[in-house]
């Protein structure tokens, strides 16, 4: 067994290897760490940059503050410097690091100074370290510099040492994830020397703090912090190396801290302390909060405080958990066992005297029940938990007047009733009336009203009913006792009643929310159209959260605004950038987030099982979402994502069906074309072979009929081929309509002659106006058009004659061919001029090629005319195809004059 154990521990830790692999595709981050301004970080960084440049590395200066120092500026000589971005802020034009330009330039290595800098105005990220992270993520190596005082976990220590608050902070994870940290060290005495010589640049507002800050004691302390932090890192790296290479370790045996936090200020301090402890112990640490299962955490201020604490913990590199339970101690210990925590860190506050007697504090209880786990207590520094005060204050006045009024009202009613029935019942029973009043107040207006009603009742009962009546004095001692019992009963009853009322209210609220969500999901399930889904969503967000919302879906490369409330909402450039960010990184962006917080919208990705389908943005009004609103929003977005996904799938399946339909249509078309070509060919081949092989045995009439059929089928084939060729010419754009003078009547006559030859059984009627003007056009094309129309009319025209009209209307020549067949269905009417459109069976047998009308249309349009179909034409029957061409009368008269 020991053999096996060692083998197991010897195997490289998969997590360590994974972290190493992830680093592979990322750029390398090198941080130059200093103890204080002026130690020469920028100088060291630029020296390194020059050396890389000399080695031929593609290196660019993204941003360096030389502060007008010539030594530093000289180092920039010969290095490519990225032009900064100009930002107007408060009327002034300032310069800022240009992240997009850097990403577009894509050097191997980039130098970005001042890691802790806070970006001004409309930047993608509020902090420069986030810019740097994006560069590293994009695979660019970054050289950067920062002072130890800016580290989040040390900020309170530094503030204590130096006596100045640190405003610009960076999460410790930035430093711990850096591939290299170089300590730029300068002994404090030398630094002070340099400062006195004016070699250290300090911002305007820091000048005043100089004397306080640059004291030997301070600088020594900061230097120690920087040295220690760098040494810790070296230790970490060694441990990582040992783990990756499966070297049996002297490293600390997996210390794990469980850090308990709650919705109070102290928790932030607990987190910072735990962070330092964890890095000192090389331990993983988990931050956990426990929420009461039976309490609706509607107190948004507390929730926000807790969120803040969690954000801090994540920045400092902790894992975070939120647990729901009622027995805090039990839950914490359970989690500690599950996570193999070795130490529990918890904050404790000195409790006021009576409370301390009444119940044991959580840390005490933990310490008592925890076994094998260390408990660290972080004490309050004495400051009042400021965050808690306003919460109470805010909750108090809300409905306070109303509660008092209700309490007074019920007590007065009870008193009046008491006075009325006093003579009928005994005194003690009147007190029951007041109990009723207290219960009523509790039910109607909650706990405050219940207490007020209890107090009012005691006073009223005393004043009106207890001897001596009309005073607040009590004559009998047992009456005093009765009063106290009554008061206690009222408190208890009122508390219970108000609690029930609160629960009922919460249940009702939840029921309403559930109902709304249910309605919404039902609405969504009924719609297959994406636009309807999106519209339902923005209106739902408006109705539930009373916030304006927008929805964007990706279309190809772009992200497109698809629905908005109000509908005329427009998005600015930075809004769109935030939305795109949210889509790409699958995380919230915009207002109240770390990315582009200047946008008025907060964008959330719509995530379905198939990935991110779009982005929803909503306006962050002054106050952020409360926890139940947050839940409602998450549910709405989930539903929407699924509905959009489903709508997209159903659209895709529709498209597939359409494609299938198209394939079927093409197959039918091909088979009908082949039928049209093959039938005349089969007839000709059959007739010819019959004549050759069996002709001798046939009668003369049979032979003659076979020859005639050969002739007719050849004609048919020829017309068909001619149509196909015409169509090919049209498709190839090769029709050249002549602009000759055309006598329309003449063209009609010759087309009719041809039609009579081909369709001898068909009757044709003509009506040509006597004053028919000439028109400009191509008589051959027009003749072909007319013949095609007559052919068509013959095919579909039933038994009745086909008529041809030609007349002048205004300055147009109008020609029409009308048949009295069954006509064309209105739905088909718009398609008759489409290529290969044909009525009837899908295989289109004996209904023509579907080319005639589309050729007619192309020819008519080539001659500058228009063509249209009407059905029914006459008396609910038939089809009329009419054409209009401009008349050429004016031109003609000119010609005559000339």
């Amino acid at each position, binding site marked *: 067994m020991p053999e096996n154990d060692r083998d197991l521990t010897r195997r490289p830790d998969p997590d360590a290897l994974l972290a190493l692999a992830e680093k592979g595709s990322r750029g390398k981050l090198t941080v130059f760490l200093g103890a204080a301004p002026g130690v020469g970080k920028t100088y060291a960084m630029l020296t390194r940059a020059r050396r890389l440049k000399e080695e031929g590395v593609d290196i660019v200066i993204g941003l360096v503050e030389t502060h007008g120092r010539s030594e530093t500026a000289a180092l920039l000589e010969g290095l490519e410097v990225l032009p900064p971005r100009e930002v107007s802020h408060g009327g002034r034009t300032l310069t800022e690091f240009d992240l997009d330009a850097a990403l577009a330039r894509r050097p191997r290595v980039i130098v970005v100074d001042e890691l802790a800098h806070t970006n001004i105005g409309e930047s993608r990220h509020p902090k420069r370290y986030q810019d740097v992270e994006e560069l590293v993520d994009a695979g660019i190596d970054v050289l950067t510099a920062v002072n130890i005082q800016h580290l989040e976990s040390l900020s309170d220590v530094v503030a204590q040492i130096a006596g100045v608050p640190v405003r610009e902070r960076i999460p410790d994870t930035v430093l711990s994830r850096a591939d290299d940290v170089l300590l730029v060290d300068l002994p404090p005495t030398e630094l002070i020397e340099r400062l006195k010589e004016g070699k250290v640049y300090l911002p305007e507002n820091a000048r005043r703090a100089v004397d306080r800050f640059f004291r030997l004691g301070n600088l020594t302390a900061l230097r120690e912090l920087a040295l220690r932090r760098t040494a810790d890192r070296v230790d970490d790296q060694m441990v990582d190396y040992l783990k990756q290479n499966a070297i049996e370790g002297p490293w600390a045996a997996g210390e794990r801290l469980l850090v308990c936090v709650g919705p109070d200020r102290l928790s932030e301090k607990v987190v910072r302390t735990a962070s330092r402890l964890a890095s000192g112990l090389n331990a993983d640490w988990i931050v956990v909060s426990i929420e009461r299962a039976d309490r609706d955490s509607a107190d948004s201020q507390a929730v926000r405080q807790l969120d803040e604490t969690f954000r801090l913990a994540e920045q400092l590199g902790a894992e975070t958990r939120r647990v729901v339970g009622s027995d805090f101690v039990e839950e914490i210990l359970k989690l500690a066992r599950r996570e193999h925590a070795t130490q529990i860190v918890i904050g404790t506050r000195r409790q006021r005297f009576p409370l301390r007697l009444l119940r044991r504090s959580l840390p005490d209880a933990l310490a008592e029940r925890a076994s094998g786990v260390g408990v660290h207590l972080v004490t309050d520094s004495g400051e009042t938990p400021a965050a808690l005060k306003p919460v109470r204050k805010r909750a108090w006045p809300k409905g306070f007047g109303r509660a008092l009024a209700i309490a007074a009202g019920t007590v007065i009613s009870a008193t009046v009733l008491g006075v009325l029935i006093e003579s009928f019942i005994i005194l003690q029973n009147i007190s029951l009336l007041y109990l009723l009043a207290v219960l009523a107040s509790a039910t109607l207006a909650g706990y405050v009203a219940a207490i007020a009603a209890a107090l009012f009742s005691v006073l009223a009962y005393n004043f009106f009913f207890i001897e001596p009546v009309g005073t607040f004095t009590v004559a009998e001692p047992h009456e005093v006792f009765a009063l106290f019992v009554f008061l206690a009963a009222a408190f208890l009853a009122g508390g219970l009643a108000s609690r029930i009322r609160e629960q009922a209210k919460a249940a009702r609220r939840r029921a309403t929310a559930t109902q709304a969500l249910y309605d919404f999901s039902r609405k969504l399930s009924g719609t297959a159209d994406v636009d309807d889904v999106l519209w339902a969503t923005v209106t739902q967000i408006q109705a539930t959260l009373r916030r304006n919302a927008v929805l964007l879906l990706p279309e190809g490369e772009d992200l497109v605004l698809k629905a908005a409330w109000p509908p005329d909402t427009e998005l600015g450039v930075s809004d769109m950038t935030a939305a795109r960010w949210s889509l790409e990184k699958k995380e919230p962006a915009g207002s109240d987030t770390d990315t582009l917080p200047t946008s008025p919208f907060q964008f959330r990705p719509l995530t379905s099982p198939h990935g991110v389908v779009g982005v929803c943005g909503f306006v962050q009004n002054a106050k952020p979402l409360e926890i139940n609103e947050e839940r409602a929003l998450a549910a709405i977005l989930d539903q929407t994502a699924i509905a959009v996904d489903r709508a997209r799938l159903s659209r895709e399946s529709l498209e597939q069906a359409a494609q299938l339909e198209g394939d079927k249509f093409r197959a039918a078309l091909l088979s009908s074309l082949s039928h049209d070509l*093959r*039938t005349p060919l089969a007839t000709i081949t059959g007739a010819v072979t*019959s004549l050759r092989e069996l002709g001798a045995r046939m009668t003369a009439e049979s032979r003659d009929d076979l020859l005639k059929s050969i002739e007719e089928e050849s004609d048919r084939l020829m017309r068909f081929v001619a149509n196909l060729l015409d169509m090919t010419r049209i498709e190839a754009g090769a029709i050249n309509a002549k602009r000759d003078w055309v006598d329309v009547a003449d063209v009609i006559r010759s087309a009719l002659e041809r039609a009579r030859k081909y369709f001898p059984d068909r009757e044709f009627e003509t009506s040509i106006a006597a004053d028919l003007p000439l028109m400009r056009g191509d008589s051959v094309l027009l003749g072909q058009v007319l013949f095609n129309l007559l052919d068509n009319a013959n095919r579909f025209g039933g038994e009745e004659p086909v008529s041809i009209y030609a007349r002048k209307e205004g300055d147009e020549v109008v020609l029409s061919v009308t048949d009295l067949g069954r006509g064309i269905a209105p739905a088909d009417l718009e398609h008759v001029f489409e290529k290969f459109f044909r009525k009837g069976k899908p295989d289109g047998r004996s209904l023509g090629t579907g080319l005639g009308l589309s050729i007619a249309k192309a020819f008519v349009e080539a001659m500058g005319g228009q063509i249209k179909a009407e059905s029914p034409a006459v008396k609910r029957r038939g089809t009329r195809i009419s054409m209009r061409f401009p008349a050429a009368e004016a031109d003609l008269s000119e010609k005559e004059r000339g």
Partner: protein
Amino acid sequence: MTVERILVVDDEPQIQRFLRPALGAAGYEVVEAATGQEALKTAATAAPDVIILDLGLPDMDGKDVLANIRAWSQVPIIILSARDRESEKIAALDLGADDYIEKPFGIGELTARIRAALRHRIQMEGAEAQLSAEGLSIDLVRRVVTRDGETLRLTPKEYDLLAMLARHAGRVVTHKTLLTSVWGAAHGEDLHYLRVFIGQLRGKIERDPGDPKIIRTEPGVGYRFIGDED
């Protein structure tokens, strides 16, 4: 000898127009039907000896007409079809059609098919025991195959294949029919068996296996045995 009656089912008047005089001149009596319903009625009343059936009919699917007739009659049926309707042809043959001919066709081709079909009907009544083709002779009773008097050594499967084709001399036999009758119902789709065995068989019986005259390939459909009488 009575004149054989042929029912021509086709809705194209032009086709009927040349088939009527041509088949008449070839010595057959022609009855016509332009629709499926008409075809079913005429097949029952006119007792044709052969039916020529176009699969594309205006009122019903030609295959339904075929299946309907096959339900009560073994009259030879020749399908008229287009070259691009391969699956339709195979389906019709599997439904019991005896042969097919592609449009456009020469009249000689059609009359040859009609003769083969009529001959088969006679064979059904008293089976022929001897067949010959290109110097090859097959004795279906003694299971002996000779070429120019010399006995050929065929494997049992090769013999079964050849006998199956020979029994349907002049007519197409589909891949599926060959496979299921020689190898069994489970091998109906194993086309590669056929390719291999037909190749071997041709190597043994054809004078020039590169230009087979006895077993002709009907692309995509099956094989056809061409005897001396065809």
